[in-house]
């Protein structure tokens, strides 16, 4: 009996603590925005570039007097966030908690494609809108339109086609493909190969490798022997470091070298210095663009606050997603259905230019590629948003 009572007390205590963590909402209180982030676990290294952008946005909004509502009033913004430990199952639980328990007003996105995909049904069920950001997969297109949107244009099918176009334009006739076995890289590879074929570019090497690869020498020796015009390394961050170091060691001479994810990370350029000048990567934003004046301001504010550069893909997308949310709220208020309608129908001005949605997707921002030039991230493709011309890679 004793045990039973202790049990009951424990459970009661637990539920009380949970309840206590939920403050009452009063008029004029901060607007609470909830999200989960992979602060620990396998994705953790990627998450700060996103969370830093979130915090920067919050600070800027609050410095401006708060988030504007349709009636012209402003309320400060407050984040409620949890660590999902890089586990999509936790993401689902956390958003359920945010919606039903913490009773947040708005939602921001977690890091990563699996998390976004796992969330889509949850948002549908609770009818809570969320602007996604760091998700990139053709699977997104299968998500029923409703309460989630993806501002990214770095989606593998479009990227494959665009990259082939760009390579053709730069006179590439042969290419070596090295792809990580994780989904994003594999998906990209599957769309790139037919596009290259169509563009008349010969694939001379096509290898996939596991994410925990520790040495690429044999692959790269093979690449070097075939001497292709282009080396397309479909990397994730950790193997991007490996690829850069070993391609340099072996003196890969291709004028067109792409590393899929990694080069836009600040540490990548710090670790490799000038040797990675000329590397192409996937992103559709650059602070160097004159067309998006707010972009440079974001870049400078970010560098000032964190002492490192924002990631041209993740940080930019994260900031954009909150800008979209901000403008939707300004127009429609905090009522979820109104926000949903506003996002569906609206047009938004972001650090990456205009954004509009059709279904779940941003149809305005073109799919682009960036290149490291003198340590800076320059947009080199497509021409209409380019901040600089593509320059063939000159050694390492």
């Amino acid at each position, binding site marked *: 009996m004793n045990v039973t009572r202790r049990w009951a007390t424990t459970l009661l205590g637990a539920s009380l603590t949970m309840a206590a963590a939920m403050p009452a909402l009063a008029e004029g209180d901060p607007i609470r925005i909830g999200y989960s982030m992979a*602060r*620990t*676990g*396998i994705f*953790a*290294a990627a*998450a*700060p*570039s996103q969370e830093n952008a979130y915090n920067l946005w919050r600070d800027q909004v609050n410095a401006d007097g708060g988030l504007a509502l349709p009636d012209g009033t402003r309320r400060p913004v407050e984040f409620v966030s949890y660590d999902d430990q890089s586990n999509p199952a936790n993401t689902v639980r956390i958003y359920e908690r945010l919606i039903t328990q913490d009773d947040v007003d708005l939602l921001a996105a977690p890091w990563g494609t699996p998390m976004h995909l796992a969330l889509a049904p949850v948002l549908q069920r609770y009818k809570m809108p969320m602007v996604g950001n760091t998700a990139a997969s053709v699977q997104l297109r299968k998500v029923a339109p409703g309460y989630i949107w993806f501002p990214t244009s770095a989606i593998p099918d479009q990227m494959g086609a665009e990259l082939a176009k760009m390579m053709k334009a730069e006179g590439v006739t042969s290419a070596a493909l*090295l792809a990580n*076995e994780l989904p994003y890289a594999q998906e990209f590879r599957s769309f790139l190969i037919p596009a290259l074929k169509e563009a008349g570019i010969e694939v001379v090497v096509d*290898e*996939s*490798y*596991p994410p*925990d*690869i*520790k*040495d*690429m*020498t*044999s*692959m790269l*020796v*093979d690449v070097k*022997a075939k001497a292709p015009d282009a080396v397309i390394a479909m990397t994730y*961050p*950790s193997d*991007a*470091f*490996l690829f850069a*170091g*070993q391609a*340099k*060691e*072996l*003196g890969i001479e291709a004028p067109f070298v792409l590393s899929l994810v990694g080069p836009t*990370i*600040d*540490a*990548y350029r*710090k*670790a*490799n*210095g000038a*040797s990675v000048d000329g590397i192409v990567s996937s992103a559709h934003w650059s602070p160097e663009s004159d067309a998006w004046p707010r972009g440079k301001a974001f870049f400078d504010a970010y560098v000032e606050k964190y002492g*490192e550069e924002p990631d041209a893909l993740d940080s930019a997308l994260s900031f954009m997603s909150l800008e979209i949310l901000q403008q939707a709220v300004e127009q429609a208020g905090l009522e979820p259905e109104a926000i949903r309608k506003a996002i569906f129908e609206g047009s938004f001005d972001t650090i990456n230019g205009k954004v509009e949605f059709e279904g779940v997707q941003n149809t305005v921002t073109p799919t682009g590629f960036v290149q490291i030039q003198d340590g800076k991230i320059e947009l080199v493709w497509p021409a209409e948003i380019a901040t600089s011309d593509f320059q063939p890679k000159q050694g*390492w």
Partner: protein
Amino acid sequence: MDTLLSGQLLFAALVSGSLYALVALGLNLVYGTLRLLNIAHGDLVMIGAYTAFGAFSLFHLPPVISVFLAAAVCAGLGWAVYEGLFRRLLANPTLAKRVEANSLILFYGISVILQNVVAMTFTASSRGYQYLDTVITWGGVSMTGNRLLTLIVASAVCFGTLLFLRHTLFGWSLRAVIERREAAQVVGVNLNRVQLITICAGFAAAGVAGTLVSMTEQITPFMGFPFTIVAFVVIIVGGLGNIGAGVLAGFCLGLVETYGIALTSPGYRSILIYGLFVAVLLIRPEGVFSKAVRS
């Protein structure tokens, strides 16, 4: 075929191999003398990498100097962990009886703490710095300076340790503890002292490995786990507690990995390594290089 015979591939295999051997050396020392399953071993590699990164970016200390600092930091952790946790565990007969299970959980806890303390201190953002990455070409083999340095330092530490174990009194007592714990105590080996020094040395080896790794890989708080795994693969293949065979197995794993990939496809890399590991455990759990011990 040309690729297979090239010095380039051999160099790559030796670099990986020496690093595997070094990481495994530390783990093997700790397992051999204390019978502890240290699954936080890779996190010590991470600590070593952060130490080197910090020293480089704050004080412009090159890794050839900060390697001593990293070794000292990790050895200090070893001391703290031994005095704070394991002395207690090993002294308590109930706990010591299930030392494997208990050490597994203890080190899991330590691993979680190390990772998250580092993540809170430095944020989880990946880090990196540029050091000695000029390419040297020698006999048709191109080598970045930092990878050559990795090979030299890792091999030197491994073989230095082996020589030390073979030719010093302490080395003899340590080997005695590994082979016959109780008997070693009877002949007057100070078990406590041997264990303390070994755990510090094992942790320090991981710190050295971390410094080497930091020159070429991205540094994050969660980078350690793959090193733990590799180290376990190596010491199983070599034979748990057999220090010399472990070093040999480390180099062999580097060769198997590099040439295995070259002969098949990079896609089979992990299947190859785990397959080898599982096969060794099933067929020869005492390790490939151990003399069969049967009662």
